[in-house]
């Protein structure tokens, strides 16, 4: 079917476009576009505000990644802190890193080594008694006292780096170690007395028991 009108229009198609929209129409369209530049700028701010409203997929991914990093960081610091805390109560471990203090107080390492060996010796003697004498209230108090001394020792050690009065601090540290030995010695004495006292009375009641039966 021939359509001359159609042919005519085809030939002059662009001539039919005679109208133009108002130039300001684009401004009106812009206002109706929610995801324009505004959103792009807002995205960065939105993360710090933690608004959940509208996120494009890639930004959501970034948020997740940031959260994972943050959690890992927190976990790691907590883990490291916990490790330090568990190490602290054992005096040997606390005293061991004295190497770094050598430059400040060179004689300290030697003194420390001497006292540490002394303390360890007393401790092993004490633990031998521990097995024999159970349920002794004093033991817990002594442990507390030792822990307290250990703490102040550590603090003194820290002060070595900051305090110019090195010899005074070293003296205090030595004193601290001597107190420990004293404490341990006294404990040993108490235990020895207890042992002697126990050996005597145990003989008597045993006899009594046998006579009674």
């Amino acid at each position, binding site marked *: 079917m021939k*359509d*001359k*009108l*159609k042919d*005519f*229009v*085809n030939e*002059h*198609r*662009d*001539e*039919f*476009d*005679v*109208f*133009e*929209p*108002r130039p300001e*129409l*684009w401004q*009106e*369209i*812009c206002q*109706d*576009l929610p*995801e*324009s*530049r505004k*959103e*792009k700028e807002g995205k960065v701010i939105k993360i710090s505000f933690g608004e959940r409203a509208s996120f494009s997929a890639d930004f959501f991914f970034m948020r997740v990644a940031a959260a994972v990093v943050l959690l890992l960081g927190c976990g790691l610091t907590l883990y490291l802190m916990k490790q330090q805390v568990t190490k602290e109560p054992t005096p040997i471990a606390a005293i061991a890193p004295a190497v770094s203090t050598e430059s400040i107080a060179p004689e300290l390492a030697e003194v420390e080594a001497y006292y540490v060996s002394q303390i360890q010796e007393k401790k092993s003697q004490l633990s031998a008694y521990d097995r024999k004498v159970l349920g002794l209230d004093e033991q817990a108090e002594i442990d507390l006292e030792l822990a307290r001394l250990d703490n102040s020792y550590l603090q003194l050690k820290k002060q070595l780096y900051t305090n110019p009065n090195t010899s005074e601090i070293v003296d205090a540290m030595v004193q601290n170690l001597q107190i420990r030995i004293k404490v341990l010695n006294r404990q040993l004495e108490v235990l020895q007395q207890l042992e002697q006292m126990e050996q005597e009375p145990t003989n008597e009641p045993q006899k009594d028991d046998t006579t009674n039966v």
Partner: protein
Amino acid sequence: MEGTDCRISAGKKSETLNRNSLKNISYQDVNHQVIERCKGGDNRAQYELYKLYAKAMFNVSMRITNDYAEAEDVLQEAFVSAFKKLHSYKAEASFGSWLKRIVVNASINAIRKRRSELVPMDERVVGEVPDEEYNDDSEWQVENVRRAIQQLPDGYRVVLTLYLLEGFDHGEIAEILGITESTSKSQYSRARKKLLEIMKAPQFVA
């Protein structure tokens, strides 16, 4: 600008005629980058696309609605919705014809709102309207044809412009308007006849 407009309004037509197909490909590639930037919400890219298509799309809407203010509303609505659903645009068709489809649908919705019925319910296929031979086509002038189209009643004008100017075939028009293909055909031939009558009328020429 002039060249792009031509290609846009040619839209589908140039594809079917396989005319300047090479041009079409490079033209799509140029748009591709801009469209990708638009998808990311780039305001300047959106303006670039708007500048490229606004005039052609405005004329499409103007021809269907036949009302300047309404055509502007349609253009605004169509661009906003096009930018919003740009992610659903697959490069199957050219961007121009995708956008044109949005504009056409928005325009038709606009007239539907103001007139309840676009195409008269009378669907009986009026046997081919006798094709009187108008041999005076040499006298046709774009301005006259354009003005005559504007004088057509809505139902006629929509089918006629979709077919003649926007390059849709009757199958597509039937789909767009929700009518049958034969209704589209008969409506077109009636509209065409009416158009020629208008142009022949003495008061029109004057």
